[in-house]
């Protein structure tokens, strides 16, 4: 099979939205964008005036909307690229984009199975694309997003997630806190563990599409716990940040 090369495309910043004190959603216009699936990512290339260039990968935060793509960028302290994208890139400025990349960690609107999404911190980005894809497609497939954050201010897409879980039949959103829980919360702040998961996730594990995304320690702890609860290791799809 001859596959055409994923070429670099010129993208332009159209708008930005703050998601947390350290994360920003960038809305980019990308003429000729070929479309993508929820869960996929893109490569971003930045080139300096002296010709130096560097690349990073970012998850797509929204489903396919034609020539508009959204990335949510978490600022990495001392990072070379993320602080620039999040703070310095101005509306109208160009960057280069290549993608979509990744055909494994994807949710398709036609899939009728229950979907369990487990997010650690900024790992919520590709999973939010799945929540949004489910909403926009009118899918009735049961979906449960379990979203682990350090503190209440670290929640990305907070208002939209509240709205989605209120309005989208069959969607459940659970936010758990690892460092600081909101006032009055029943669950004291701690890392998501096997006991939490046993109480939260579907006990009948066969036929659940499971997506786990976050830092390595989160992904390892959560996927090991799911396997111990009887989830099929081969049906758990993971994406790790570092």
């Amino acid at each position: 099979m001859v596959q055409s090369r994923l070429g670099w495309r010129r993208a332009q910043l159209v708008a930005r939205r703050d998601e947390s004190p350290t994360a920003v959603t960038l809305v980019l216009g990308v003429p000729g964008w070929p479309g993508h699936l929820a869960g996929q990512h893109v490569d971003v290339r930045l080139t300096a005036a002296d010709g130096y260039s560097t690349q990073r990968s970012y998850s797509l935060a929204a489903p396919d909307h034609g020539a508009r793509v959204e990335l949510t960028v978490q600022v990495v302290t001392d990072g070379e690229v993320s602080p620039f994208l999040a703070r310095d890139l101005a509306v109208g400025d160009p960057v280069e984009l290549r993608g979509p990349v990744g055909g494994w960690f994807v949710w398709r609107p036609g899939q009728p199975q229950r979907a369990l999404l487990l997010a650690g911190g900024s790992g919520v980005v590709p999973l939010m694309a799945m929540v949004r894809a489910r909403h926009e497609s009118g899918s009735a497939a049961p979906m449960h997003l379990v979203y682990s954050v350090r503190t209440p201010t670290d929640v990305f897409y907070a208002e939209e997630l509240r709205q989605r879980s209120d309005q989208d039949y069959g969607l459940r959103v659970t936010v758990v806190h690892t460092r600081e829980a909101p006032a009055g919360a029943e669950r004291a702040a701690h890392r998501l563990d096997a006991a939490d998961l046993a109480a939260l996730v579907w006990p009948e594990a066969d036929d659940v599409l499971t997506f786990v995304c976050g830092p390595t320690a989160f992904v390892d702890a959560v996927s090991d716990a799911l396997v111990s609860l009887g989830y099929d290791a081969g049906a758990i799809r993971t994406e790790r940040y570092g």
Partner: protein
Amino acid sequence: MDIVTPGFRGRARDSSQHLPPGQYLVHDFPVLSAGPTPYVDTDEWAFTVTTETGERRTWSWRDLMALPQETPTVDLHCVTKWSKLATTWRGVSLDVLLEDVESAADFVLARSYGGYTTNLPLEDLLDGQAWIVHEFDGEPLAPAHGGPARLLVPHLYLWKSAKWVNGLDLLTDDEPGFWEQLGYHEYGDPWREQRYAGD
């Protein structure tokens, strides 16, 4: 001509750091894998080479340890853009493991515990280019990094260095592996930036 992003300067250029195009240097050791980490006991570990005629040769952990060991120091290049330089490993050269295997195959499909696969030309595993490694940085290889043993083919992007490897199928016809079926490049040479199909 690349498109210049106004105001982007990037890090200080260090001409002594010679990296493949599009890669950046890391000093930690990131973990990437498509599913949960399999935990394989060395008592149960086995590595099997299956030729195109169906002939099989299997090594236990004890067999592997009894073979001549090498300690390659190599640079790693991950398709997700990070590179890690001068990593030290310990393991057995594929030249040793394949020495007595009779085969006319040109291709290999590496198989792993957990179901992962990746394909390579057989010649890329020979002549001191590839190892089955079981120690990293002087310590037993951790499960997250592919322990108890992984394939190490450092001249190709790291997804070719299958973690948790448990066998090689020697094939007359090339057969795409896990990522190769999902849009990643057949061969994956970092110096030619062969990340995705068609690169």
